[in-house]
C-alpha cells in the first residue's frame, strides 16, 4: 500500500473524521493490505500526533474525542478482518474503569476510557457510583492489569481509598495497578491512599497506564528471573 494511503489514514485520525477513517480502512481490506499494517502505519501514528498536539495545547478535548471516534470506526472495520486472518492487534492491557461510590459524574472517566481504547487498551467501564467491592470483583473476573477510579467531588474522592482497600482485601493488589483521577484529586492524595499513580487529565492517563504496564512487565520479569534463580 502506498505511503500516501497510510498518510491519509493518519490524517483522518488527526481530523477526527470517522467516515473517512472507516472508508480508508474498508479500502485497505479490499485491496489486501494487512490490517496490522494499516493500524500500525496509519491510524496509531495519527493518535500519537493527536496526543502530541494536545500536550502542546494545539488540540482540544472535543478534537481528541473526535479523533478517538475516528479510531473506533477504523477499528470496527479492521478488527473483524484481524480475527478472520487469525491475527490480533497487540493488546496494551486490560483496564477496569469507574466513578467512585456516591459519585455520578462520568465525563472525565468517559474521556479516559475512549483514549485508552484508542491506544489499544481493552477497557471495561463499570459506570458511576461503583463500590470498592464491584471494582475488585470485576478486576478479578477480567484479570485486569489496571483499575482506574474517578471522582469529581471532594466528598466522594475519599471513596477512592475504599477501592484500594477492596483490592487489597481480595488479594489482588500485587497483580492490579490502581490509578486515580478527577478534578479534586492530586498526586499527593494518590500517594496517601496507596494508589500507583495519578493522572491530571485524560491524555496523561494514557501515558500513566502505559507506564504502569511497563512497571507490571518489569515486576513479572523480575519474578520470573527470581524463580529461575531459585530453581
Amino acid at each position, binding site marked *: 500500500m502506498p505511503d500516501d494511503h497510510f498518510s491519509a489514514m493518519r490524517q483522518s485520525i488527526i481530523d477526527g473524521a470517522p467516515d473517512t477513517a472507516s472508508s480508508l480502512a474498508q479500502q485497505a481490506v479490499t485491496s489486501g493490505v494487512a490490517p496490522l499494517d494499516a493500524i500500525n502505519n496509519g491510524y496509531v501514528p495519527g493518535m500519537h500526533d493527536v496526543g502530541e498536539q*494536545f500536550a502542546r*495545547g494545539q488540540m*482540544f*478535548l*472535543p478534537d481528541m474525542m473526535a479523533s478517538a471516534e475516528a479510531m473506533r470506526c477504523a477499528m470496527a472495520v479492521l478488527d473483524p478482518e484481524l480475527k478472520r486472518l487469525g491475527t490480533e492487534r497487540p493488546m496494551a492491557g486490560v483496564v477496569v474503569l469507574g466513578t467512585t461510590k*456516591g459519585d*455520578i*459524574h462520568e*465525563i*472525565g472517566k468517559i*474521556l479516559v476510557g475512549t483514549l485508552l481504547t484508542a491506544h489499544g487498551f481493552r477497557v471495561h467501564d463499570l459506570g458511576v457510583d461503583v463500590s470498592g467491592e464491584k471494582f475488585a470483583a470485576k478486576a478479578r473476573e477480567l484479570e485486569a492489569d489496571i483499575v482506574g477510579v474517578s471522582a469529581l467531588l*471532594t*466528598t466522594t*474522592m*475519599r471513596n477512592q481509598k475504599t477501592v484500594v482497600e477492596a483490592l487489597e482485601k481480595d488479594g489482588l493488589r500485587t497483580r492490579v495497578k490502581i490509578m486515580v483521577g478527577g*478534578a*479534586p484529586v*492530586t498526586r*499527593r492524595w494518590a500517594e496517601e491512599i496507596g494508589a500507583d499513580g495519578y493522572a*491530571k*487529565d*485524560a491524555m496523561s492517563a494514557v501515558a500513566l497506564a502505559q507506564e504502569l504496564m511497563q512497571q507490571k512487565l518489569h515486576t513479572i520479569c523480575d519474578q520470573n528471573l527470581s524463580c529461575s534463580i531459585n530453581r
Partner: protein
Amino acid sequence: MRPKLELLDKPLIERILGEAFQLIEDPGVRVAPCVFDLLRSAGVTVKDGVARIPEALARRLIDLAPRGFCLYDRSGRPAVRYGGDDVHFDPGSSCLNILDPHTQQARPAMSADLVRFVQVAEKLPQFAAQSTAMVCNDVPQEIGDWYRLLLVLWYSEKPVVTGAFSAESLHTLLDLLAIEAGGREALRDHPRAVFDVCPSPPLNWSEFASQNLVDLARAGVPAEIVSMPLAGATAPVTLAGSVVQHAAECISGITIHQLAQPGSPIVWGGAPAIFDMRTGKTPMGAIETAMLDLACTQVGKYLGLPTHAYLVAGDGRVIDAQVEMESGMSAMLGALAGINMISGAGMLDFLACHSIEKLVIDAEAIASAQRLIEGIQPRSDSLAVAMFAQTGLHGDFLKLKETRVLFRKEQHFPSSVIDRGLSDVDGRALDILERARQRVDDLVASYERHPLPPERERELINFAEREAATSGLEGLPGILAPAYTKEPHLI
C-alpha cells in the same frame, strides 16, 4: 442610582425560559423514586424514572415560591435577606484541603482548621453568613456533614450556608439546628441556615437530592438549588445553552419542592462553570464562568425569585496575582448583578482548596464591591458650589466641616491587608501574603466565643456525643477533648 450589570435582554430571557420549560417536558427530567408519587399526584407523567413536567404546572408552582425570606442570626435577628437586589457574601463550602499559610502547600483540612476559619469569618463584616467551609479529615466521613455544622454553630452567631451529602444526614443537621433554635417550630419561624441541594447535570435529581428537596420543604427550612452545568461537558457548550439547562434544573427542583410544601422558601442558585477544553477542569475564575453565574441569576430575578451564585474563587494553586485577580473581578461582577448570596470566597485551585489568608484578602475585594454598589450619591444639597464658596480658589478642602463629616461615608478604609503605606515593618513593605497572615492572626486573637445558654449548649453537646459515638469518634475534635468529663474545655 445603584450601578447594575445585566447580560441578557428581555427577549433572550424569554427564549431561555421558553426552552427551559420545553426541556422539562421533553426530554423531561430524571427523578428519584421517592418523588414519583408526589409528581404523579400533580399530573406529571413519570416513566422509566423520567418526569415530564408541563409548563403550566411549573409556572403555577414557581408563583407559589416566596419572593424573599430572611435568615436569622443566633439571637433571632434577621441578618440575611434573600430577595430583590440585596447582596451578601459567604465563604465557599465543603472543601477537602486547606492551604498551609507558610508552605503554600495544600494539605487535608482538620477540625482545628475549620474552627480557625469560622473565627476569622465571624470577625469579618463582609461575610453576612458562614458556610460549612471544610470537610474535617480527622472526623469519620459518615458523620462529616453534621460535624461541620456543629463546629460552625458552636463558634459562630451568623447565619449559615450548609448542605447534606445524604438523605439521612440531613435529618441530623436539622436536629442540630432545632436544638440550637429551641425546637423545630422555632427553626421554621427563624431559620438560621439555608441548605444547598445539587441536581446532577444534565437534568437529574438524584435520590438524595430529590429527598433533600422534599424534606427541607416540609421542615420549612430554606433550600438553595445549586445547579452546576459544565458548558461543553455536562451541558451545551454555549453560555446561553447552559443557562437554559440551569433554568430547567432550577424549575424542575422548584416543582418538586413546592409540591412537597407550597410556599416553602427556595433559592434559584448555582455553581455553573465552563469546561476547559485543554484540561477538562472547571475554571471558577474564568470570565465565562462569571458570565454564566450572572446570566443564570438574571433569569431567576426575572421570575422574581431569590438568587445565589458561586463566585470570588480563583483557580491558581497558591495565593498569587492570578487567584486574586480572578476572585476580585468576580466579586465585583456578582455585586453589580445584585445576587442575594455569593458563595466561594477563600477558595482556590478549582474549589479544591481553602485558604484563611485568601479569605481575608477576598474580604477586601468584597468590601470594595460593596462600596461600588452603594454608588455615587449627592450627600449634600450643593454638590460642589457650596464648598467652593467657602474655600474659593485656595482649594483648602481638608479644613472644611463637610470634609470631616462626609469623608467616612464616601471612602471605604481597607484593613492592613491592603497596602496603602501603613504596613511597612522596619522600612520594608510586606507582601500580600505576609499582610494576610498578620491579619488572620490578629482576627483570631481578638475572637471571643459567645456561648449558647447553658442548657442548650449541654443539649447540643449531648446530642453530638451520642451521634459521634455511633461512628466510634471519641470526644468532639475542635470542641471537646476525648477525656471530656463535666465541663467543656476547648481544645
